[in-house]
């Protein structure tokens, strides 16, 4: 069997678990105003990378990471190399600002073609910024390859992948020929920690940067997200009654008593 070529698409986003106070909305500009939290790799994309690295452990593989954005923070993506990815390609261009899902998929498709000879493309099921959850399937459409969504386990069997995927009432095992696109759910497993040594080595590697002009793409197809409004969320804080007591046992009993008194129990 030839060496597997795997592409993993990592999106850089503001930490989706950052405190809500870090997230503001500029309604006039229809822009998010995010401050005081670091960029991270979208968590589901870390799962996608882990799925790729597991295949690399089993079969040997070349893992190429693609990340597209207007401006990318390299240190965040270097972690992918430290964890075991072989190449990092930054798709960076002022023209890539706030693209809609369709255009994002188009750019990623152009880049995947340029990487060439891929067997598996792994993406996350959803990016935690715009929570769009469709770029992967659109990318597969662009490349006219089969797509499997919501993977929890990925195996390679000669020229095919065998994937266990989420269904509401359990799982489904499906099989598809390579090249194939697979979107990862968190059940695939958390990304391994890079060793300090690997991280140091990764820092010495130079990522490639491809601009729009390097990708043989039609710039008229790059369209920004079409927002009518961007609004702050409705107020959701409640006034919490903290239940007191001498011991935790007391607190538990007092909670039941209080909820009973308030007509809830």
């Amino acid at each position, binding site marked *: 069997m030839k060496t597997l070529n795997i592409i993993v698409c990592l999106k850089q986003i503001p930490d989706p678990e950052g405190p809500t106070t870090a997230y503001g909305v500029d309604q006039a500009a229809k822009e998010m105003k995010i401050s005081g939290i670091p960029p991270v790799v979208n968590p589901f994309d870390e799962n996608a990378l882990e799925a790729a690295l597991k295949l690399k452990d089993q079969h040997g593989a070349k893992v190429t990471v693609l990340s597209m954005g207007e401006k990318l923070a390299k240190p965040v993506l270097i972690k992918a190399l430290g964890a075991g990815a072989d190449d990092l390609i930054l798709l960076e261009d002022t023209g890539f600002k706030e693209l809609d899902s369709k255009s994002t998929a188009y750019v990623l498709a152009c880049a995947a073609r340029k990487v060439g000879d891929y067997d598996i493309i792994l993406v996350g099921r*959803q990016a935690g910024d*715009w929570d769009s959850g469709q770029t992967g399937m659109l990318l597969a459409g662009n490349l006219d390859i089969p*797509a499997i969504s919501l993977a929890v386990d990925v195996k390679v069997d000669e020229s095919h992948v065998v994937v266990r995927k989420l269904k509401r009432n359990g*799982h489904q095992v499906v099989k598809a020929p390579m090249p194939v696109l697979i979107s990862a759910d968190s059940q695939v497993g958390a990304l391994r920690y890079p060793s300090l040594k690997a991280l140091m080595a990764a820092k010495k590697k130079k990522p490639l940067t491809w601009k729009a002009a390097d990708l043989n793409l039609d710039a008229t197809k790059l369209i920004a997200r079409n927002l009518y409004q961007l609004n702050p969320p409705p107020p959701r804080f409640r006034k919490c009654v903290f239940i007191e007591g001498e011991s935790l*046992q007391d607190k538990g009993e007092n909670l039941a008593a209080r909820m009973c008194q308030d007509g809830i129990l």
Partner: protein
Amino acid sequence: MQPKILVIAQTEGSTTEAVTFEVMMAARELAGKTSGAVCTAVMGAENDGPAKELSRFSDTLYTLESALLESFQSELYLQAIKQLCGQIEPDIILLAHNLDNIDLAPVLAHALDATLITDCIALGIDSESGNLLCTKEVYGGNANAVFVNTGKPAIATLRPKGLKNVELPAGEGSIQKIDLVLEEKSVRVEVIENVSSQAESFEKADVVVAGGRGIGGADGVLLLEELIQALKGKFAEVALGGSRPAIDEGWMPGFRQIGLTGEKVNPQVYIAVGISGALQHMTGIFGSKKIVAINNNAEASIFNYADYGIVGDYKAAVASFTKKIREIS
């Protein structure tokens, strides 16, 4: 513009899934605002039951029947919907946001060169342009975005709200059978095995007891189950739920996940045990009348959203809470 709105129904054999009624209601509302027409597509091996039921909401109901459509397969469903769309040319297509359609909706959008907005919580029409407006939570619930969907057609998936009862309109619409030519040969993703168990739904739950990473393991789930048993002395329906780590760690099956990428629940009481209160979890539970939080970190953000809180290790607190509920039952 009087848009033709196509709803892709969600059915399971001879029954219509509850979420379909929510999507039908949204379609009817849009049609009302625009004097548009609602068409519904039912897909399956044998559609008589759902077709009759759903025709009440529809100006025209299309039944797409084939043994190949018996259970969901994205590529075959796509072929069927594409053929229908070729005939009726809808302006808007609405689907439920569920696991199957996370797969199907983008593939459909690509095939029709349409534009898709996923997981919408409200729909509207821009009075000037006539375009579909799709409201959805973004940044995990840190903002609400209203997108202009200029797609031809414009596609949206709608977030299930877990509504309890939707009233069926009276009467029946016309039912039309669509002749399909499905090509099994071109299917690239082959189903090898289904590993299914019974998945409960949260629609009827009066109380949800949910565990997070803080319950530490499957043993923690046993403690929560005792609490659930005690609560069943007071409430008709009490369900177990979890945050994502509780599912990823394998302490609970996937259908119990609550939150942005899980279920949305609206019980009378939601009891969150060992859950920190990340917005991606909370967005699934804001419909709860009362929220109770038990967490050993007084600074945990869950307390901002809770009506009642206990700060401390959950084990002792849950055990005595359970005992006291039994006493007062």
